[in-house]
C-alpha cells in the first residue's frame, strides 16, 4: 500500500487543487501543493525505512489484475534502481512548487498539472508491468506539454509542439516494442521477466530493442534525437526546467536500464559496443554544442545532453560498478542540473536576460547576485566533476566501470567531462566575473564603466531551495555510501545478469 500511496498522494492532491472550493489565491494553492508534496516526500523517505538494501529484487510489491485480457496488471515494486529516482522525483517536484512564484494565469491548473506529472513519474518508476509503465509514461506528456505551452516563454508554442511530436514518437516506439513483444512471443505477458533466446530469437530481440532504444533515446535525449530539449528548456519556466532536467529525462535512462538492459540482456550485450560509441558521440556533441551557446539556459540544456550520455556509456558497459555509476549519475545529474536551472532562473528573473554576451560581473558583492553566483560556482564545479561533489563520484564510477570494457568510448567521454569545465568556466567567467553589466556593451569602455546597475536583491527565501540542492550535491559527494548502500545490490545483480549472458 505504501507504493500505491506514492501515486495516490499526488493524483488525489491534483484533484484537490482542481476542486478546491471558492476562488483560492495562487499563494494558497501553492501552499496546498507544497503540503501535498511534503507528504509525498515523507512517504518516499518512509519507503527507505521499509526497503531492504541487501535484497537485489523488487520489494514492497503490489499486484492486482487490472485488465487481464490485454496483460495489463496493476503491478508495483521498488528496487535499488527506482528508489533513488522516486526520492529525487519527490524532492525536485517539491523544489519546483516552492520556486513557483508570481504565477499570473490559471494557478489552479498549473499546480494540478505539477502534481499530476509527479504522480505519473512515480508510477513509471514503480511499474512492474510494461503496459502500466507505458500508461504512466504517456500520462506525464500532456501536463508537461500544457505547462510549456501555457506558462512558457515567448516562443512556447513552437517548443511545446516540438516536444509533443518528439515524445509522442518516443511513446509510439516504446508501445510498438512492448506490443511487438507480445506479438513475437505469442503471449500477453507484460511482466518484467527477461526475454532470452529460449523465448525469442536474437533477431526478434534486436527488432524490439532498437525501437526501445530510439524511444528512450529521444527522452534522455541522445544525439541526434536531442533536438527538442534545448528549445523546451529555453521556453519552459524555471520550475518546469528543474523538473524536466532533474526528473523527466531520467524516465529515458531508467527505461533504458529497466526495459532495454534488463528485459533484453542478450540483445543488449550484442549491441553494447555500438551503444558505447553512441554514448561517447552524444557526450562530445553535447559538450561541444554547449561551448557554442550564448544563452545560459541552452548551455545548461546541452550540458544535460552530454551528461546523460554517461548513463548510456555505463549501461553499455554493464559492469556492476558502471551500473552503480549510472544510478549515481542519474541522481547527481538530477540535483546538479536542477540547481543550475534554478540559478539561471534567478539570474533571468532579476536581470531579464540570460545572454552570456550581455551579462557580466554578477558576483559583485553589493549590487550583483553574490550568493546566486557562489552557488553557481558550486554547481558548475559539481557538474565538471570536482572531487567532493556528487558529479565526481558518479563520473568516477561510470568511467572506472566502463574503461575496461570500452576503453576508447570511455576515454572520449572523459574528454567530454573535461569540456564540461570549459563551457561552465566560460559561463562563470562571462556572467559572474568582471564589472557588473546586464546590457549589451556600447563599445566605449568608459561609458560602460559608468553604468549604474540597479538589480533588486535576491531574498534568502528565493535562494533557500538552491542552497538545499547545493547541500545535497555536496552531501552526496562527501557521503556517497548513502546512495550506494541503497542501490548497490540491485545494480550488482543487474550487472551479473548482463555479464552472465555476454
Amino acid at each position, binding site marked *: 500500500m505504501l507504493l500505491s500511496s506514492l501515486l495516490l498522494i499526488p493524483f488525489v492532491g491534483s484533484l484537490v487543487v482542481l476542486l478546491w472550493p471558492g476562488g483560492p489565491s495562487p499563494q494558497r494553492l501553492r501552499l496546498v501543493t507544497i503540503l501535498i508534496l511534503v507528504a509525498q516526500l515523507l512517504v518516499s523517505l518512509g519507503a527507505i525505512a521499509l526497503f531492504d538494501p541487501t535484497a537485489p529484487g523488487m520489494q514492497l510489491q503490489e499486484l492486482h489484475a487490472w485488465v487481464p485480457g490485454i496483460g495489463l496488471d496493476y503491478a508495483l515494486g521498488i528496487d535499488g534502481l527506482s528508489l533513488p529516482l522516486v526520492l529525487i522525483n519527490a524532492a525536485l517536484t517539491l523544489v519546483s512548487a516552492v520556486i513557483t512564484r508570481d504565477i499570473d494565469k490559471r494557478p489552479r491548473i498549473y499546480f494540478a498539472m505539477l502534481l499530476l506529472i509527479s504522480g505519473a513519474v512515480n508510477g513509471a518508476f514503480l511499474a512492474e508491468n510494461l503496459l502500466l509503465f507505458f500508461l504512466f509514461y504517456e500520462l506525464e506528456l500532456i501536463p508537461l506539454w500544457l505547462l510549456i505551452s501555457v506558462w512558457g516563454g515567448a516562443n512556447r508554442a513552437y517548443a511545446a509542439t516540438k516536444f509533443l511530436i518528439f515524445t509522442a514518437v518516443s511513446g509510439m516506439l516504446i508501445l510498438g516494442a512492448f506490443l511487438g513483444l507480445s506479438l513475437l512471443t505469442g503471449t500477453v505477458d507484460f511482466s518484467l521477466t527477461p526475454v532470452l533466446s529460449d523465448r525469442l530469437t536474437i533477431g526478434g530481440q534486436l527488432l524490439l530493442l532498437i525501437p526501445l532504444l530510439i524511444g528512450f533515446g529521444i527522452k534522455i535525449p541522445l544525439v541526434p534525437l536531442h533536438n527538442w530539449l534545448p528549445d523546451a528548456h529555453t521556453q519552459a519556466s524555471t520550475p518546469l526546467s528543474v523538473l524536466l532536467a532533474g526528473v523527466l529525462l531520467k524516465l529515458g535512462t531508467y527505461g533504458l536500464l529497466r526495459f532495454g538492459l534488463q528485459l533484453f540482456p542478450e540483445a543488449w550485450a550484442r549491441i553494447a559496443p555500438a551503444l558505447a560509441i553512441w554514448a561517447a558521440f552524444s557526450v562530445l556533441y553535447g559538450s561541444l554544442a554547449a561551448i557554442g551557446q550564448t544563452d545560459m539556459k541552452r548551455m545548461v540544456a546541452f550540458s544535460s545532453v552530454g551528461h546523460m550520455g554517461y548513463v548510456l556509456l555505463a549501461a553499455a558497459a554493464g559492469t556492476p560498478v558502471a551500473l552503480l555509476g549510472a544510478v549515481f549519475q542519474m541522481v547527481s545529474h538530477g540535483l546538479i542540473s536542477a540547481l543550475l536551472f534554478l540559478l539561471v532562473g534567478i539570474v533571468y*528573473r532579476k536581470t*531579464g536576460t540570460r545572454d552570456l554576451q*550581455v551579462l557580466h560581473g554578477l558576483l559583485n*558583492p*553589493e549590487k550583483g547576485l553574490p550568493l546566486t553566483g557562489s552557488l553557481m560556482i558550486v554547481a558548475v564545479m559539481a557538474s565538471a566533476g570536482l572531487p567532493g561533489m556528487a558529479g565526481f563520484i558518479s563520473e568516477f564510477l561510470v568511467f572506472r566501470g566502463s574503461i575496461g570494457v570500452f576503453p576508447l568510448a570511455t576515454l572520449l567521454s572523459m574528454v567530454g567531462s573535461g569540456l564540461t569545465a570549459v563551457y561552465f568556466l566560460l559561463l562563470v567567467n562571462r556572467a559572474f566575473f*568582471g564589472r557588473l553589466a546586464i546590457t549589451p556593451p556600447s563599445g566605449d569602455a568608459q561609458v560602460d564603466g*559608468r553604468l*549604474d*546597475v540597479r538589480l533588486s536583491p535576491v531574498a534568502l527565501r528565493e535562494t533557500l531551495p538552491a542552497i538545499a540542492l547545493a547541500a545535497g550535491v555536496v552531501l552526496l559527494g562527501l557521503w556517497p555510501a548513502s546512495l550506494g548502500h541503497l542501490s548497490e545490490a540491485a545494480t550488482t545483480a543487474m550487472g551479473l545478469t548482463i555479464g552472465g549472458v555476454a
Partner: protein
Amino acid sequence: MPVISADLVHVEPSLSCDELQRRLLSGQTLLAESSDHLLEVVGVLESYGEVLDAYSLNLIYQAEHQFLNPVPVFKYLDGDLSPAKIWRHLNHDRINFEYAEYCQKAMFWHGTGGLDAYLDGEAFAANCQAIIAAKRRRDPLLALLNPLFPGFLPELIRSAATTHALGQFWRVMSDLFLDLARAERSGQVSTIAHVVDFIKDGLVAAAANPITYGVTIAGQHHWVLPPEAGLTFLVDVAVPYVEAVFLRGMPFLGTVSFNAQAQQISPDQAQFAYGALYADPLPSMGAGIPPSLLLQDMYRHLPEPLHQWYRQRTRGEGDVRVKICMSFQKSMFCVTNAAINGTMPHPLSTTDPQQQAANAAYALAWAGRLAAGRTDCLAA
C-alpha cells in the same frame, strides 16, 4: 511583468571639459546644487572626518613611536596594549588603518611636490645619517642591516616622514570636516556652494601651517623634517596628496585587469588616472581593493540621517557601501573644487584680461584632467 534589462540600468551624463572650465571660472560649483547632494556630502564628510581623526592619530603614532621598528606588530594599537584592545583588534572591531597606509604609499610612490623634493635633498640625507647613527647603537639588527643595504634605512625614514606629514594633513582635514557638519547643523552651511567655500576657507587658513617632524632617540631629539625646510601644509602636502590619491591612484580597480606589458598602463606615472575621482564605486568590498576598507570605516561612523536616506534607496543596507562610495566621490569633487578655487592664480572677479587669461588657463588645465573622471556623479 518581465524584467527589461535596460530599465535597471541608469546612466547620468558626464560633463565636458568646456563645461567644467565654465563652472570653475563662473564660480559655480562642480557638483550640482540639491538638498540630496547637501545631505550626502555633509554626511559623508562627517563620517570621513571621524575616520580621518583615527587615521591621523595612528599615522602620527606610527611615525613617532614605531619609528624604524623592524617588526611593528602593534602599530595599529596606538600604544594601548590592553587585552580588550587586542581582542577588539583581532575581532576586527576596529578602524582599517591599512587604508591610511595605502594612501601614504600612494603619496610616497607618486612623490610630487616640495616634500618629495626635500626627501631627495642633501639636508635630509644628513639628518638620516645622524638618526641612523643614533639608532644603530641601540639596535643590533639595524646595525647589521645598514652596512649591508645602505639605502634601506633612509628609505624607511622617508616613508616615516610621508606618514607623519599625511597624519598632520588629515588632522587638519578631520577637524575641518567635523566643523563643516556642525556648521551645517547650525544653519551656517545650507548649499553646496557654502560647502565648497567652507572647505576652501579651511584650506586657505591652514595653507601656511608648517609641516615638521622630529623623533626622539635615547632622549635626544632629531629632526626629520625640520622647520627650516620650510614645508607647508597646502603646497607640500595637500597638493601632492590630491595628486596621488584623488587623481593618479594605483591601477588596481578590482574588476578590470590591465596588461602593463602592452602599455595599457602608461609608463609615465603622471598620466595615471586611477584615483578617487576616477574610481568605479561598483567593486566595493571585493577582495584586495583598499578603498573598500575606507568605505567600511565610514559605514561605522555614518550619521543617522544619511544612513536613513541610504536605507530608502535601491537595496537599502545591502549596497550601502557602494552608495557611500558614490557620495564620497561627490564630496571629493567638492574638496577638489575648493582646492582649485583656493589656488586660482587671481580672483575670479578680476577684470584684467591677463589675469583672466591666467585663470582660464589654470581652470582649463584642471578641467582637462577632471573631464576624464567620474563627472557623471555631479548631476543633480
